[in-house]
């Protein structure tokens, strides 16, 4: 009976200690390990430098513009990029090599660059950039204009969407704060 009581007293302390270890371990796994397992890291097919282009005085809207009917043109086509980068440069610098890669693999073959888009919404969401043009782009998008290297793209292994795809609650929260309707049909046609 003595031994049992002694075990019991030591056991409670051990249980608390291991409980704490389990708690902290779970936090580490959940916040550090799990995201690394959930997302696969991908890089853009072409290392496009936004800063190089903004430093040349090119406005964001020149490549990412709204069409006359309010439709967002999204990403420039290969043909649009090839207006400036139609020929190989032969430049051995990292930027020159990247331009030549674009010219060789896309401009000359007419294939569209499979850019990885950080924030594509699911197909069942109707998102109009025209309706949101009063906001700064960086309110929702990473400020790539200041980046020489495009940020890594994290793809959710389960859902297939980008880590940066805006979730519905985020849309709803902003709509609520702006006094905009959150009715289903506003986004789901």
């Amino acid at each position, binding site marked *: 009976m003595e031994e049992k009581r002694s075990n019991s007293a030591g056991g409670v302390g051990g249980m608390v*200690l*291991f409980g704490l270890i389990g708690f902290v371990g779970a936090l580490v*796994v*959940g916040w550090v390990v799990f995201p690394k397992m959930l997302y696969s890291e991908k890089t853009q097919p072409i290392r496009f430098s936004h800063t190089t282009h903004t430093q040349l005085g090119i406005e964001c809207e020149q490549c990412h513009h709204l069409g006359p009917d309010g439709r967002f043109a999204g990403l420039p086509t290969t043909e649009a990029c090839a207006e400036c980068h139609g020929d190989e440069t032969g430049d051995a610098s990292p930027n020159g090599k990247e331009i030549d890669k674009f010219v060789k693999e896309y401009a000359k073959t007419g294939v569209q660059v499979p850019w990885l888009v950080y924030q594509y919404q699911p197909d069942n969401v109707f998102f109009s950039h025209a309706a949101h043009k009063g906001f700064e782009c960086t309110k929702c998008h990473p400020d790539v204009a200041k980046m020489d290297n495009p940020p890594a793209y994290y793809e959710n292994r389960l859902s297939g969407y980008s880590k940066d795809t805006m979730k519905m609650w985020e849309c709803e929260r902003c709509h609520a704060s702006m006094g905009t309707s959150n009715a289903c049909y506003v986004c789901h046609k």
Partner: protein
Amino acid sequence: MGLDRRAFLGLVAGGAVGTMFTPIPWKLIDDASIWTQNWSWIPKVPKGQIDYVATSSKLCPACEGLKIMRVAGNPVSAGGNPDHPLSRGGVSALARSEVYMLYSPARIKSPMKRSGKTFAPITWEQAVLEISEKLGAAKGSVACISGDGTGTVNELLSAFVGKLGSAGYFMMPSEAGTAAKSLKLMGTQGQAGYDFENADTVLVLGADIFETWGTSTRNRKAFGATRPVGQKPASNYIYVGPTRNNTASVCDQWIPASASDLGVVALGLAWHLLKAGVASNAPGFDTFKAVVNGGFSPEDIRRATGIAPEVMAGLAKTLASAKSPLVVMGSPFGQGLGAGPFIAGMSLNMLLGRINKPGGVYMLPELATVVPGALTRAAMLEADLPAFLKGVESGKTPAPKALLVYDANPAYGLPETATMAKALEKIPFKVGFASFMDETAALCDLVLPNSLPLERYDDVATPYGSGFCVYSLVRPIQKPVCDTKTTADVILGLARKLSIDLKFDNFQQVLKEKVATLAKASGGFVAKDVMPWQVAAGKPAPVLAGGDLWKALEAGYAWTMVGQVAQTAMGFAPEILAKAVKAGKGQATAATLIPYAQLRTGTPVTGIPCQNLTTVPDTELVKESTFVRLNSETAKALGLKKGATVKVRGAGADCEAKVHVFESVMTGVVSAPLGFGHTAFDIFSKGKGANYLSLMAVAEEPGSGMSVWTASEVKIA
């Protein structure tokens, strides 16, 4: 202090509690729910630059102008072109499907050669070589069937067949054919064009003008323009026909009448107009008057059709008092109408003084041909295909040695279908120029896939029903999805191989020449700021000054011209009416089959567009069974109950159907949907219901000798 049982439990409990404070459970549940929606067969919305390109519909008989939406250069959807006079932004269910049909499973993916009961793919070179050898051997006995009622490709085909030694050039039966033959019998020329836009009262005799008759998309827009929301309608539309179809259901009045009594109703109305003192200087008026007064009194009409004398008198008064009345004649399902009812209806237009008047009927000139040796459209429409094939089947007419079938499906789309298919089987060498593996292609020895309209150059010249001359361009907006070619180019290649001079090297040259001819035609203009019906109503026509007409057509605008051919002797053709239109003793048969057609179920050459199948209601098709519609009185007389499965027998054939009791069908009539019962195409068309056209018996119309089949007696058990 080792990891004993309690410590382990503590570790697990701590881990479990800790996990609750991490994203693991919540994120996994959320992502798993999204994962369950990511199935491989769910189509993805394409991303990329969105643009619109203009073309015209060739698959839809309404020939409306289209705006094709493209994403990153790939067509994704078709909508109406607001700048095109045959569309004005409207689009039919069939034209809307043009993009989706690029990927139809029924598409013929490469040239095919018959090998026993199946087909084997061959190369284009092999196919052309084989055809040129066979056609060379069949010289003097080559026939052609075309289902394209508006294209310049007919010029190439008719010239090619003519120079090979033609055994006949046949168009698939249509309202245009009936009109052309009837106008010829009336001693006139030109193509009947109906100015709906300027008419204030429209009497529709049978024609399903808002669904399958003529330029139906334009007709709907013209109707809608006179009925602004919240305002008093500026037009009055009256439908006379066997069912309250898509046209009748929006008209101001529906007067039930059998499809075989349309001419009787027209002459009954003429009786009232003549009684009111209406006269005409047109040839045959006196005999016409005698014919009408002799057999079409209100009592004759009541006995023959069941329409009360006061209804007829009221209708005649409405027409006589209207500022711009217009009478339109047609078959309720777009084919089989005889000259009798057409001439009777046109006689009303003549009595009302509506020929070549705004809001009336224009006798439109034909656009000039550009291919040497080509038949004119009027000449193409003369031949009687059902009569020819029945003759071949019975052995009375020699079978041609070779047959070219272009954009047509006579093994499915003709009455007495089984007989027609047997006739085709008697022809020793058949070449099908088709885009889809339809019933006729399946009978052919060689099948050469035609590129779809979104993949080829083609054109549309004044479709039947248009109130003005119109020409629009069809242009490729993407490369062929399969190993297909434009048939017109294949014909030009064959001609070169057989040393036949057709003047042109490729079809684009032919079309450019056609457009150049139009640019020189006086009175023609590009419909942009001024529409042709405005010119008909008195607005000056814009001048087609310089400019590049081809570019304007490529941009989706239409060349149009308002006017008519000179009329010298348009008469009433009373001798035809006297024989072809008789006010009989009334309904003697218990069941008369009168089909109806809808663009959503496609045409004989398209089959049912797969996306449209979901729009077919369960009162038309349930699983593999189609429904026939009859009203409760007819059902009671025949002893039929709602939902019963029956056999409908007619013309030596029978079809299965389910009974749908529907009060929008007149008593004694069995209304059946067309477009079903395919034995070819794909899973979206094949084996879906029955082809009720096979039950329609072809009769020779007294007086004109034309093949007619607007109503057929059937037995139901």
